């Protein structure tokens, strides 16, 4: 067992965890933040993307023990005061989701993109979302949603 102290969506959290607990496991099973989804569980599908210290990573492939002292933002941390984040709003407006399973990862990944690139082209959005797989094949509207969000943020 390992003791870790991290910050999740602005709240300090101290937990004792097993050495092999992943960040996705900590978020979902211990902190009940089930917005972060686990699809492939081997870092290919991107449903589990969260931000750690401001950068998007796949939480299924990070050990919680190794993130002691980090700041984590999950999909639950985007909305503020009951108001959706512009990226969430844009996904809703542009129908950027069907079943919604990949959506938390798509949104977290896209938010990271806009941090580094204010007005990405369609190609840049598609390249960036390389590691996020949508099996409803909703990519077209996802790209449209990211563009819409870029125009609002």
């Amino acid at each position: 067992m390992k003791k870790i102290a991290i910050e999740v969506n602005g709240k300090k959290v101290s937990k004792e965890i097993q050495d092999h607990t992943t960040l996705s496991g900590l978020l979902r099973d211990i902190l009940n933040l089930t917005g972060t989804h686990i699809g492939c569980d081997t870092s290919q599908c991107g449903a589990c993307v969260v931000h750690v210290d401001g950068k998007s990573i796949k939480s299924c492939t990070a050990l919680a023990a190794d993130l002691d002292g980090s700041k984590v933002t999950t999909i639950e941390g985007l909305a503020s005061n009951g108001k959706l984040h512009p990226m969430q709003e844009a996904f809703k407006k542009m129908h950027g989701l069907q079943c919604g399973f990949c959506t938390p990862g798509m949104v977290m990944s896209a938010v990271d993109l806009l941090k580094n690139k204010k007005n990405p082209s369609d190609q840049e959005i598609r390249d960036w979302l390389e590691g996020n797989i949508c099996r409803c094949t909703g990519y077209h509207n996802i790209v449209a949603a990211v563009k819409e969000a870029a125009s609002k943020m």
Partner: protein
Amino acid sequence: MKTFNYHSAKDVKEASKLASSNSAFLAGGMTTIPSMKLGLASYKDIIDIKRIKKLSGIKVSGKKVTIGATTKHSEVASSKDVKKAIPSLAALAEGIGDPQVRNRGTIGGSIANNDPAADYPSACIALNATIHTNNRSIVAEKFFTGMFETCLKSNEVIEAIEFSIPEKSSYQKLPNPASRYAIIGVYVAKHKTGINVGVTGAKSCVYNDKDLAGALTKNFSSSAIDNVKISSSGMNSDIHASSDYRANMVKAFAKKAVDAC
């Protein structure tokens, strides 16, 4: 995933001391963690080396670019120094996996794993890299010994990879459309001392294609490659590409790389 004892080493000495025949060093974990989840690997001890400060960073001096073992792909891809000194190396890093993999995966992890379809091993071959460990310095051609095999000992930690800055170079790959691993990747580098053609994805281990290098030494142009025969013997054959196709692609991508130099 089977459990293990997690250690975060404070320095290389401690990391090396903790190592055994039943342990693995952990950097980005982009291969180690999925491998453990899939039951392909299990270890008693996982020794995290990410918090060892001296293992990370990029230094350019004279004709060398030295990259610390735990430097992330995204850091190499966005480094102004690497872009200026060896733009093809920054471009290679930008093409690994996806943004989240690049935010975690490390150069040392990539070469220690020596996946036959990984990108960085070809850079090590093409750019006359020297791999510095806590015990010795190893030239790239001796470092990679076979499929997922290197000459590293179980308690040996890669500290940095030192690349020679070439006169010109280019890495061109045919990526697997899903994983972005190289079905074929060809890294052509022209140094004052000679030409290297690092090929990844084609065989069980990265190699320097001496026939292509020989033809390019006589005439550094893509047409010089036209008459080089690439044998498909010993080439990988799988659902993504047959060995004949791979042999053909080695040639096609070598030409592309020369044209892009």
